[in-house]
């Protein structure tokens, strides 16, 4: 494409099919104790 460069195709739709196993880390156990950021957690069910 001339005008648009796609940086990421996203994976949310795909993860909806296999998601929800709960094997991943709880967000507040990593490095935030007040300002919730979940998107930086790693999936453990790839």
């Amino acid at each position, binding site marked *: 494409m001339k005008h*648009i460069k796609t940086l990421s195709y*996203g994976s*949310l739709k795909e993860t909806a099919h296999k*998601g929800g196993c*709960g094997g991943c880390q709880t*967000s507040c*156990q990593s*490095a935030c*104790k007040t300002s919730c*950021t979940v998107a930086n957690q790693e999936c453990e069910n790839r």
Partner: protein
Amino acid sequence: MIHKFKMDDVNIVLDVNSGAVHIVDDIVYSILDYYPQKNEEEIKTLLKDQYSSEEIKSVLAELNDLRKQDLLFSEDTYISNSAFTTRKPVVKALCLHIAHDCNIRCRYCFASQGDFKGTRSLMSEEIGKKALDFLIENSGNRRNLEVDFFGGEPLLNFEVVKKLVDYGRKREKEANKNFRFTITTNGVLLNDEIIKYINENMENIVLSIDGRKEINDKMRYTVNGEGTYDIILPKFKNMVETRGDKSYYVRGTFTKYNIDFAKDVLHLADQGFKNTSVEPVVAEPGKDYELTYEDLPEIFHQYENLARELIKREKEGNGFNFFHFMVDLNQGPCVIKRLTGCGAGSEYLAITPEGDIYPCHQFVGNEKFKMGSVVNGLNKERLNIDFANAHVYNKEKCRDCWVKFYCSGGCHANAYNFNNDINRPYDLGCEMEKKRIECSLYIQAKLRMTEKTEG
């Protein structure tokens, strides 16, 4: 739904529901003010003074193509997804308040300087073991179980920490579980022996330090009023140097007194720490160090500066991680996790030294939120608040917000403390989170553009 923003020379478009991210030129950026509500002819008329018909036509073809691929204006279908609707949360993580006592005094401490508004106390080995048993019993089929040794200051009760790690290692084999122990410490009591033990036994460590000496020492001081910076910095360096590849974070808090907090993050990076986290203080309204709306422009400016510096250092081969800018665009958590968030009050619970259960560390001390004990069991019914269903679709403000899949509806405790309702997010926190996510996308876009140029 899309979110578009400009930062420096980059135009970024996030397709909210697919998670796709696009870097676009100025024509696309302008056309997206009208697309797809207006048709081609209407858009050509609206933008005729800026762009030719041919240019607009070619952009619309690209936009239509992305829509066909479900990478633009994709629908949110998750609310009816069976993995979401049939989810049954089980307890998988505990914040174990091993010590409701602290050897330093932090002005902004949400734990009332260590005692959580109660009596100063230490968790007994017996209660700690019951907490681990409770976690195993309530964890269903989940194998990975997380236990964070928290306080107050957990090193004040380190013998019990060690006994609980031993007990966890024994019980995990019997129960086919995998305990992941972590610890959050102010560092004052660290010595070589403790450092060695923690590095061997803790999966992640959170080391509390606010940044520059004068900033740290203004808020974090000993009971005698002396700053802690000179005590803890060499210990943290030693700990991180001997830790190898294992995970760690140096973590600080910023307040109105260091609104130029980007300097504190960079100060920590300059000390050699590669994993940093500096978070906005959550203060009771009226405190002198409280962050307010009038601080937002400067806070945004600081996040932008930090993002630019992070890119610069990355290019120079001297990069570091800032926790709140870390977003994995391709392999991050599944959408189900993004909808449900931190899991406080359902998957994640806090246990006091007496064994009482609370939804998370932030609620400890508020008797209203006590939800049982590890001795007598969990009693969720005691709470009139449904934490398990405090997801983004049940939060009116989040439903139509572009950042919902990154913050997952924000911190329940902040929402409750400011709005008396876990389903009404803390606005100031939302604004800062949006800025952080924009900066994260900007960083990734800039680094990718550099790769392309150099490659």
